[in-house]
């Protein structure tokens, strides 16, 4: 948990940052504030009807003026109804529209951020910014704000009426308000802390369930059910005790507030009683004061509660605005955008063909979150149609070159040339539209097989799709599924095995007919026989395309035009398979280890 959440500080500096997002709705907001204030002021007037009834009708023993009285009351109720309808509806609209705008804004912004952002922040964290922070902010600028208006103007209305009808008694009552406010603030702060802890434990308990269910197989084969249950009970026990303490405080709080209300009431009765008895005050006025006495602390409490909710939201405002402020470390220059368009508004009429010559010229590179250079003065020329393989141990940095090639990162020094021109001279979207990338951990979207395969080529026909599937030997995946291309793959492709997902994502890349093809350990979860079939497919598919293949099974890349051997993030050997074998270096060592030479006793 970040430190910022730990200490309860009373601060509001996040709010001005929100102004730009509510500006489009300022008219609606201003109107709703005006109407809300008016409505609450009217609420404060109702006891005056009572006063009139008591003093005029009851006290005067007459029913004259009853009709205007009723008409006035009804008119006020109806008027207020219209006002309330309009202002609450507008308030809801502001909430929803601001929510929607912020979600769109953050989602769009995320589409432009580079991978270093995604590597540094978990999906869950980013998702919460888009889906829940936006909701909290929308709530803040609508209902929370209206809460201030409603309660504030009600309180103000009461105050004005009290001062007008009996200033002396009003002053005495008002003395109690600050005392109440201080007490309430103390409790709110306490409760805020409790609530944070409860939320924390709650998410731990949800995590426990998640673990107990997704890890059920592991728990069973390890036989650790008892331990898991014991640990779970520790969490629910902690939850129990924390919640009870929280409840104790909040019960105390509520009781104290109601007790204060009766203190105010008894004050009114005592002072007001004396005044009335002496004929200095009328019964009607006394009844107005009694009504207010019972109702005036609630708005104070509401305001304090709202304030404390606003403090709690500060963290979310900060996180959200920080997300929007993050700048991508891979950004197209204004000139490039001018000519080629940005990620959302491509100007395809200006796009050149991508031919497929790749050159790394004196490239040095360091990951934005790392401090060591993983490439130093690296040169590599790959003419169109050549096939480059990158091999090395797990975690040795094999993906670095590919990340640079795809412009997921920019070189720290030096440049990447595509068809002889600096990659930065063309837009990212232009490049990406020409690249096919198959990942080690394949990602499918929920939807049908067809939807997924069309991802890279939205207008592909079924015939083309089937052809791509055949090319990567993925027809068998389709045969297994009941509805063929219309079969659902589930969220994230959960209905398929990893191997099947790899096959489909491979077909998806082929279908897009890219100029550059990147296979990042694309067949690691596929068995050898199928893999061999795919190998054959690969050699057909890469024909005429510049391709980069990352592999840890070396048998799959022996035919590559060039093999780069990576160790500890650096390229230590390069050449064709035969050359590298002759060099008797690290590659040969890797190769032999993978095969059977070391086991002479087997023969």
């Amino acid at each position, binding site marked *: 948990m970040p430190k910022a959440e730990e200490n309860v500080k009373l601060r509001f500096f996040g709010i001005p940052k929100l102004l730009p997002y509510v500006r489009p709705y300022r008219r609606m907001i201003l109107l709703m504030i005006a109407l809300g204030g008016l409505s609450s002021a009217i609420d404060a007037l109702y006891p005056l009807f009572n006063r009139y009834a008591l003093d005029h009708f009851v006290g005067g023993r007459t029913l004259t003026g009853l009709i205007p009285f009723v008409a006035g009351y009804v008119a006020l109720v109806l008027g207020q109804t219209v006002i309330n309808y309009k202002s609450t509806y507008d308030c809801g609209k502001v909430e929803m529209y601001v929510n929607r705008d912020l979600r769109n804004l953050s989602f769009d912004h995320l589409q432009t951020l580079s991978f270093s952002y995604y590597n540094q922040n978990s999906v869950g964290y980013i998702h919460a910014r888009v889906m829940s922070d936006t909701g909290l902010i929308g709530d803040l600028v609508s209902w929370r704000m209206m809460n201030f208006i409603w309660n504030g103007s009600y309180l103000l209305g009461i105050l004005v009426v009290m001062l007008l009808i009996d200033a002396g008694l009003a002053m005495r009552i008002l003395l109690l308000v600050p005392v109440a406010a201080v007490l309430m603030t103390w409790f709110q702060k306490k409760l805020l802390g409790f609530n944070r802890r409860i939320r924390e434990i709650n998410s731990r308990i949800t995590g426990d*369930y998640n673990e107990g269910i997704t890890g059920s197989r592991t728990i069973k084969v390890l036989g650790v059910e008892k331990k898991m249950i014991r640990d779970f009970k520790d969490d629910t026990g902690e939850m129990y005790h924390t919640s009870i303490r929280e*409840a104790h405080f909040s019960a105390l709080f509520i009781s104290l507030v109601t007790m204060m209300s009766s203190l105010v009431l008894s004050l009114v009765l005592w002072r007001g009683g004396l005044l009335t008895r002496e004929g200095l005050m009328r019964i009607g006025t006394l009844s107005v004061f009694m009504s207010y006495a019972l109702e005036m602390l609630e708005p104070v409490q509401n305001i304090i509660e709202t304030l404390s909710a606003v403090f709690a939201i500060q963290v979310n405002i900060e996180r959200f605005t920080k997300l929007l402020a993050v700048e991508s470390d891979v950004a197209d220059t204004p000139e490039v955008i001018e000519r080629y368009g940005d990620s959302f508004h491509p100007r395809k009429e200006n796009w050149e063909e991508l031919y497929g010559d790749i050159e790394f010229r004196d490239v040095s590179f360091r990951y934005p979150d790392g401090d060591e250079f993983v490439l130093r003065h690296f040169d590599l020329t790959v003419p169109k149609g050549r096939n480059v393989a990158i091999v090395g141990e797990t975690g040795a940095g094999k993906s670095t070159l590919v990340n640079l090639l795809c412009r997921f990162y920019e070189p720290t020094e030096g440049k990447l040339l595509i068809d002889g021109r600096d990659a930065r001279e063309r837009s990212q979207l232009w490049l990406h539209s020409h690249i096919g990338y198959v990942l080690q951990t394949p990602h499918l979207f929920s939807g049908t097989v067809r939807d997924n395969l069309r991802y890279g080529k939205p207008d592909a026909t079924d015939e083309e799709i089937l052809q791509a599937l055949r090319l990567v030997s993925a027809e068998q995946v389709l045969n297994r599924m009941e509805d063929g291309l219309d079969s659902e793959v589930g969220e994230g492709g959960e209905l398929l095995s990893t191997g099947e997902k790899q096959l489909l994502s491979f077909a998806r890349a082929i279908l897009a007919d890219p100029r550059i093809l990147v296979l990042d350990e694309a067949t690691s979860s596929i068995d050898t026989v199928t893999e061999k079939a795919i190998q054959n497919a690969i050699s057909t598919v890469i024909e005429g395309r510049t391709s980069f293949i990352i592999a840890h099974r070396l048998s799959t890349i022996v035919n590559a035009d060039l093999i780069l051997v990576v160790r500890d993030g650096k390229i230590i050997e390069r050449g064709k398979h035969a050359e590298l074998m002759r060099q008797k270096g690290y590659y040969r060592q890797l190769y032999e280890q993978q095969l059977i030479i070391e086991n002479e006793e087997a023969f």
Partner: protein
Amino acid sequence: MSNPSNNDRFKTNRQLLLYFLHGALPFFGLSACFAALVSLFDMVSPKIISFMVDSVIGEEAPALPGPLTALLARAGGIEALRQQPLRVAILVAAVGALAALCRYFFRACNARGAEKLTRRMRDELFGHILYLPYAWFGENSIGDIIQRCTSDVETIKRFVAQQLTMLVRTIILIVLAVGFMAGINTKVMLASTLFIPVIIGYSLFFHVRVGAAFEKADIEEGKLSTIAQENLTGVRVVRAFGREIYERERFAKQNDVYTGFWVHLIRLLSFFWASGDVLTGMQNLAVLLTGAVLCVRNELTPGNYIALVSYNLMLTWPVRMLGRVITEMSKAGISLERLRYIMNAEEEKDREGAEEPPMTGDICFSHVSFAYKGSPSPVLTDVSFTIPAGKTVGILGGTGSGKSTLMYLLEHLYDLPPENGKITVGGHDIAGIRLSHLRRNIGIVLQEPFLFSRTLKENIGIAREDGSMEEIRRAAVIASIDETIASFSDGYETSVGERGMTLSGGQKQRTAIAQMLIRQTPIMIFDDSLSAVDAETDLRIRQALKSATGDATVILISHRITTLMQADQILVLENGRLIEQGTHRELLAKNGLYRKNYDLQTAGLEEGGGDDAEG
């Protein structure tokens, strides 16, 4: 969802609710008593005020019940009070204090009951779920089960602690308020109470009608959330295919649908709230008018009039909320139903007279056939083989050939029906071996290992709580993960999983190997557990394992020939059938599937070697 059967542990929702409520009921009972007291004290204040207005401030003769008249007389009669109205004021404050005290106890008892209930629900569910058969998890969606354990539990808690309580409190309040009003004046009481059924009915009508719309809005939100989730997890795919525009449109479209839905809902709600104001306003006016007219006619004193207005005001909010509370209560039935489904699922049970034989004997599969529930084709067909005690056996097979299923059956993760063959260890049918004993003696490293959200040290030692740090490190060294762990800044105290750092596939596998090794089980299974580890590390681990596995019977599953070739015996599976069996050499000589795999995996070497020879 299963059909209710007679063997169900909980036949009705009520039965389940009462089971969960065990231990919490007394607190809810107490809280109901205090709630009644709160309402009672709240009713007293207006009475005192009315007395004050009429007899202390006004000149009416006090009309008090007998005992109170005596009390008043002892206090010096009404005249004394008229001189000292402070006493009445103090009485009001005292009653207020009593009400506050009861309010505190009401809330405290209610909270205790609620928390007891929640804790019991959670503990019972968790404890039950962990003992459900593994197959159950395949038949149910994980997200759905978690949802049930979290939000449905929350719904039931709200149902009992808030809604039911609120319902009880409101009923008490209505009865008391109506009673007190009737005690003062029937006509005014009627003017107020006639509105109550109208307000409740209107609110019920509305909430029942919009209830479905709320659910629809939730569904739309779920869709929107999924789009965002998939976009974020698939960010590489989105970029690599240059599909930002499509993603943006997809999100914006669903965002509009969802927003539009809510705006529509809020419009309905605003209308409902505003029109509710009209009803309440009319109710207040009716009381005001009737009261005023009766006062003018001398049928009511001003003090009583003020009291009636107060009673009416007390009713307003609870009555308005009632419709919503009642509608929301109907959700609890659905939630209980959903939890009942989980609680009624049958736990894994040992057969009667289950034994705990030594697990060091031969493992024997005889004529084992198996199909997963709901799948038309069998995964395994008539598989028979014997693994001699202390030997190492390799299993080779393609994706979906049934290798892992064999191991799941050996672990008794699935029940093998007697007519589908038999699995024995040391001659004992595993169906008759105590589950905990069976699993305690078989160590398995799963293909996709699962690490717990704990530290690495706890993860490795999880199945051996008495394991010392020394043993943990030794296991980690053999699994070749010790160095990696040492390179983390927190070392063995590094948290992994959801709340910690993410390990790579290979690091997870190696941690899982250490987790198994430390248990020193007589049977050890490696289910393709080095697939994400590079060849060099693979070799290192295999060499270290050779000495570490000792007398254990070892089963290696892999599609890497290098991993399998040293085994004493190798089984080759294809489409659920055992098609080849023998040592590495025998299998090579057979020229079958094994040979084919071997050739494919060694192809490059010969070519490279050939070049080498030429050069």
